[in-house]
């Protein structure tokens, strides 16, 4: 199927006559795969480089321009048992990767400076208690300054710039006390060195920078990794569109290559990959991914269609548009902007801690100085002691306390099939006390399922499946899949909008609408029992059967709902689908609170009503109609099959057929939040122990260095406890 993908959009010329292609490869998970793929592909003549990236499950290929058809690589990988799709790094991912690399470079500079300064500091510390000459000590201090000042000026820039922008916005963040601490410590050390004093804190300052950068890097790297994985998922969906390259000629191109204004052909059974307006043709379409409504709708020229729409009966020509004129999308974008603004006001745990922390620390330092002055100490000694208080309280452990837990917890979530989109997702998911599920595509699987297979004889099912292979209708496709059919029947005609018919064993055979097969009575019987189902009838000679095709609940949905309730989380269903369908799902799952036929605006209203009652809501949904609610809720999750917009606003995306990742996300996040709080308390305890020593004026550079690294290591070790994975 992917043989007809047009690769030209993804090929990059690298100069020297070489072409570069990036592939996202599904199923690379061990060193064996890596070696197998690299060895096999590099035996293709004219391939100059084939390198697997195991962390990101990607493969970078380079070959001589024009020598190899890129399809060959995809086919070769398929022979080896891997599905591969071309992909393009999006802007967000490139940015995250560049930031992560920048932080790593600064961390390297700070760490090397810290190591070299330590080599100079240890002689000074031991010399102070033995017989070092003051000139030698000064010389070592000057050397330290020579190393630390440029290193700090370069590597501490992220803190300085973030502190400056916070101050400019008249706020305080964690970086303000950090920057003040670093600048004061360095300034004091330089002045003390000029005055031939005994103590300088160059080593403490640069070590602090290195530890804090390590925390930042962990945080950034986690984000980069999620982005990369999300990029792979987008590539593995391999969305293509059939584009008119001239009024009469069509070509299959990747959806990413479609520009606004392009005209796209949609055939029955295809899922639309772009937003746009119908310019020609009529068809029934399944908009369940977008509106949650499972009954098909009719589109005619002028109607808006959205990415994710499934075409059921007719062929359509659609003009792709960037900002569709469709009222639904307009309204959703407006609601979304509003909801996202509200969310940006959420204060992260680290910010809340720093709002408390900065004033307390600075007041303590000031009081120390005033206290010593009142006690009769010299102005110089009072200031030195006050700065020592700032250095010892500088939030080394605080800077690591949260990123370290987040990194470990997001690794654990990754293992359970949950990808985090937002940096503060863990904190927000941990706080929720109510889950609102959308029904269609979230509690149910996006693919259709035949519900009454057991009531129909096996040989009939097999025959119907073979007949269904001749139809592109998605409901017929579901029957073919469930029957495991592989060989289509010969000489079958399709009646558009009705079904397929032909001859088999000398008797007429039909599959399609109940009226087409004369099975209206059977169909009504099924619809009375299960109003949500689509009925497909099958007739062979005189015998008639009706298949009930419907969306199936995720296999573990009921267990997950029970477990959530047991954890004290209230569960509710809010769906855009019809009432009988929602009631049936709610009854099957044992959910008492449910709402049906809810519009996007009403979904937000319901969430706001709950917020007023003091609830913190986790919204789980997939449709375009859920996007504003996902943004408005305290936290949100989407299945990986969701529309682009929903995935982009959700805090987390979960993979696979099961609903268990939602439960895992809540459990792991709660545990992680507990560890974050513990870590903050550990940092507080450390300060309570260390600050009195600093206030008393007893802190030497040796004590500062030991205290700083000691507290950081303790916090890191505590964070590793989040690794113990929840049994899911």
């Amino acid at each position, binding site marked *: 199927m992917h043989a007809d993908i047009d690769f030209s959009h993804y090929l990059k010329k690298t100069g020297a006559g070489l072409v570069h292609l990036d592939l996202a490869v599904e199923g690379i998970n*061990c*060193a064996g795969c*890596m*070696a197998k793929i*690299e*060895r096999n592909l*590099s035996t293709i003549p004219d391939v100059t*480089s*084939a*390198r*697997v*990236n*195991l*962390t*990101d499950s990607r493969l970078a290929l380079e070959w001589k321009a024009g020598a190899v058809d890129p399809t060959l690589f995809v086919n070769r990988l398929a022979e080896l048992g891997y599905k591969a799709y071309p992909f393009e790094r999006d802007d967000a991912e490139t940015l995250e990767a560049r930031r992560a*690399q920048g932080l*790593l*470079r600064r961390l*390297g*500079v700070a760490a*090397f400076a810290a*190591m*070299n300064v330590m*080599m100079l500091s240890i002689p000074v510390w031991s010399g102070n208690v033995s017989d070092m000459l003051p000139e*030698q000590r000064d*010389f070592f201090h000057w*050397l330290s300054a020579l*190393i630390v000042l440029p290193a700090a000026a370069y590597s501490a820039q992220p803190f300085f710039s973030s502190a400056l922008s916070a101050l400019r916005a008249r706020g305080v963040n964690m970086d303000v006390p950090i920057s003040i601490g670093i600048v004061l410590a360095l300034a004091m050390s330089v002045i003390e060195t000029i005055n031939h004093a005994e103590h300088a804190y160059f080593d403490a300052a640069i070590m602090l920078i290195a530890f804090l950068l390590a925390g930042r890097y962990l945080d950034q790297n986690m984000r980069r990794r999620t982005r990369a994985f999300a990029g792979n998922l987008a590539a593995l969906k391999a969305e293509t569109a059939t584009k008119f390259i001239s009024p009469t000629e069509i070509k299959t191109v990747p959806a990413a290559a479609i520009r606004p204004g392009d005209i796209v052909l949609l055939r029955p059974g295809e899922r639309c990959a772009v937003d746009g307006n119908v310019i020609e043709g009529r068809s029934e379409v399944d908009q369940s991914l977008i509106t949650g409504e499972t009954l098909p709708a009719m589109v005619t020229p002028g109607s808006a269609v959205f990415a994710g729409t499934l075409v059921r009966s007719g062929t359509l020509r659609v003009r792709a548009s960037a900002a569709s004129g469709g009222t639904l999308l307009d309204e959703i974008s407006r609601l979304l902007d509003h909801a996202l603004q509200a969310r940006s006001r959420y204060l992260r745990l680290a910010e809340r801690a720093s709002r408390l922390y900065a004033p307390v620390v600075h007041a303590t330092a000031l009081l120390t100085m005033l206290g010593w002055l009142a006690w009769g100490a010299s102005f110089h000694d009072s200031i030195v002691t006050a700065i020592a208080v700032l250095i010892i309280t500088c939030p080394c452990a605080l800077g690591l306390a949260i990123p370290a837990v987040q990194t470990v917890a997001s690794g654990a979530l990754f293992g359970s099939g949950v990808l985090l989109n937002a940096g503060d997702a863990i904190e927000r998911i941990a706080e929720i006390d109510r889950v609102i599920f959308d029904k269609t595509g979230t509690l149910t699987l996006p693919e259709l399922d035949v519900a009454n297979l057991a009531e129909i004889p096996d040989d009939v099912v097999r025959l119907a499946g073979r007949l269904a292979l001749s139809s592109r209708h998605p409901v017929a496709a579901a029957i073919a899949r469930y029957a495991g059919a592989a060989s289509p029947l010969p000489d079958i005609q399709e009646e558009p909008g009705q079904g397929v018919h032909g001859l088999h064993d000398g008797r007429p055979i039909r599959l399609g609408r109940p009226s087409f097969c004369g099975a209206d009575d059977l169909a009504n019987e099924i619809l009375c029992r299960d109003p949500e189902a689509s009925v497909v009838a099958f007739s062979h000679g005189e015998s008639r059967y009706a298949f009930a095709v419907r969306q199936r609940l995720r296999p573990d949905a009921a267990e997950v709902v029970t477990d959530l309730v047991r954890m004290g989380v209230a569960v509710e269903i809010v769906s855009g689908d019809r009432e009988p369908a929602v009631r049936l799902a709610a009854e099957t799952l044992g959910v008492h609170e449910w709402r049906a036929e809810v519009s996007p605006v009403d979904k937000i209203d319901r969430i706001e009503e709950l917020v007023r009652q003091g609830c913190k809501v986790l919204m789980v949904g997939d449709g375009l109609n859920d996007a504003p609610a996902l943004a408005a809720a305290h936290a949100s999750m989407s299945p990986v099959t969701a529309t682009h917009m929903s995935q982009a606003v959700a805090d987390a995306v979960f993979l696979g057929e099961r609903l268990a990742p939602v439960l895992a996300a809540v459990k792991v996040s709660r545990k992680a939040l507990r560890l974050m709080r513990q870590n903050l308390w550990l940092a507080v305890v450390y300060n309570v122990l260390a600050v009195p020593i600093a206030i008393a004026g007893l802190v030497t550079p040796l004590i500062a260095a030991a205290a700083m690294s000691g507290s950081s290591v303790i916090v890191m070790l505590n964070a590793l406890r989040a690794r113990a994975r929840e049994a899911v």
Partner: protein
Amino acid sequence: MEVLVFLVPLALALGFVGLLGFLWSLKSGQYDDLDGAAWRAIADDEPASDQGRSR
């Protein structure tokens, strides 16, 4: 203590070389795939008949 005249610049120069080495390794993409790098180190060498290791 004249030995310091040699030792201190030598130590600083070595530290600087280490830093340059780190920056070079970062620039040449050696930190892009940490999981893969861990396995490459213990991967079996290919038979001599092949044209060296696949790059």
